[in-house]
């Protein structure tokens, strides 16, 4: 199935789900409306002509405070059809939240926890949304572009300045 056909397939089910496509991406990317991402993923996973059975990667991206947006990028792969697809969604940076796809691909469980941990993106309907890499009482989300690390963590100085010595 070609990229265009995948696009048509999604459009035939949800006409307003696709906001655009990104030609500068490899593999080809579709920009999906955040609210309909879960439904789109369900179709792509269930349709026997696409059958995207593997979620290779899920990455959060922070576009910075000036733009006020965050992005989540889903890299899908279909083992039987050898198909690649990238899906992108843009979400509001002040209150980032997204529907979890961990009910479709279990891979998303830990990858979403990682995005929650490092970007503070809340995933709705996630079975177990806890921090994964950082300690539970860490402050802030380190991969945000405007992140400032805390001064001290359990009495350990984190930010060493030259005059601390």
């Amino acid at each position: 199935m070609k990229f265009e056909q995948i696009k048509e397939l999604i459009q035939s089910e949800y006409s307003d789900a696709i906001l655009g496509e990104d030609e500068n991406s490899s593999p080809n990317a579709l920009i999906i409306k955040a609210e309909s991402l879960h439904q789109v993923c369900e179709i792509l996973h269930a349709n026997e002509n696409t059958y995207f059975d593997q979620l290779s990667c899920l990455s959060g991206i922070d576009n910075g405070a000036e733009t006020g947006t965050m992005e989540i990028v889903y890299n899908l792969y279909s083992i039987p059809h050898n198909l690649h697809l990238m899906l992108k969604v843009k979400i509001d940076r002040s209150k980032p939240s997204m529907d979890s796809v961990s009910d479709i691909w279990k891979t998303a469980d830990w990858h979403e926890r990682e995005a929650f941990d490092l970007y503070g993106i809340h995933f709705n309907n996630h079975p177990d949304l806890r921090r994964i890499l950082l300690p539970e009482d860490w402050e802030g989300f380190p991969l945000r572009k405007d992140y400032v690390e805390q001064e001290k963590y359990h009495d350990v100085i984190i930010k060493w300045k030259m005059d601390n010595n």
Partner: protein
Amino acid sequence: MESGTPYSPLAASEPLKYQESDLKSEEMIINVGPQHPATHGVLRLEVISDGEIVKDVVPHVGYLHRCFEKHAESLAYNQVIPYTDRMDYVAAMNNEWAFVMGVEKMLGIDQEIPKRVEYIRVLVTELNRLASHFVSIGTYGLDIGAITPFLWMMRDREHILRMLEWASGARMLYNYIWVGGLFYDLPVGFEERAKEFVDYVKPKLSEVETLLISNKIFIERTANVGVLPLDLAVNYGITGPMLRASGLKFDLRKVDGYSVYPEIAFEVPMGKGEMGAVGDCWDRNWVRYKECLESVRIIEQCVEKLLGEHKRTRAFDPREKVPKKIRPKAQDLYVRAENPKGELGFFFRADGRSDQPFRCKARGPSFSNLSVLPEIAKGCMVADLFAIVGSLDLLMGEVDR
């Protein structure tokens, strides 16, 4: 935490998932790790057990988190390569190569790399794959009580580490594969040494087969333990030898056919359930053992090419295609490569204005491979839990990044 217990910093920073009130009578929480010889690094497991039966396992990771992605965002592309070494530190060459491949694709120079460079890359990564599988098979034997194979495998791995040290100057963290080329050509005599090594290691591998893989005690201990069905494996994003052990012939070296792999003849072994069910611990180790044999075959062919068709010449410059300035145009790219542990993927976003990636996400194979542990360990015996953890071939440096 019950009210009344004194405040403990550990409970605040690394709390358990299960509370005492969640447990049924006779169930208990056992904490394993983070420092424990059977967890291959700093993995902490919260085990809910009823006597000898494991009811649930909750892996706690992050003890080796070194902020790879944050570092990558503030470093130039070529400066990130040493950091990728430190992810899967027993197979550093493979990590470098995946990263470098992504950057080369972004720059559009991936088709211009000289053939000799590509063959050297395949040679060193396959050597490193052997070293990684040696660690995996050896420590797995150690986990379930066989000490001798571990010593044997470490002895053989030492040959590889010394060869790679000869080529790059470092034993484990090489920074040898550069964007567009290599740090240096192979040292004079390396090809002959690789040939010698192949002759040396072949009988050693069959020794390991008799000593460990087809040993009756080993089979009894691992067959039918920790069976991972294929549909579950795919859904959890399991890749590499684990996926192949579950009965799918899927190898990115064949599927994507990157670099010069299409020119090289090798087989993709897959689990057949010879000793028990398909996808059990024995199958996973057997697949790794078979992959060692295939890697030896690939090394042989590479050496042949490097001594023949693409032999060393005075004019050959491994840095010929190394770009002076690495500034890809604005784009998003996902690249993947077959690592010893599975699919290592990098997601890049380049903004076109700087030499540093705007975003660089690493998708470590061990990360996804570990996430399936609760699923396959449920209902097994506590002693089998460690047989299962060992068979996943985890490397915490890659899980935590």
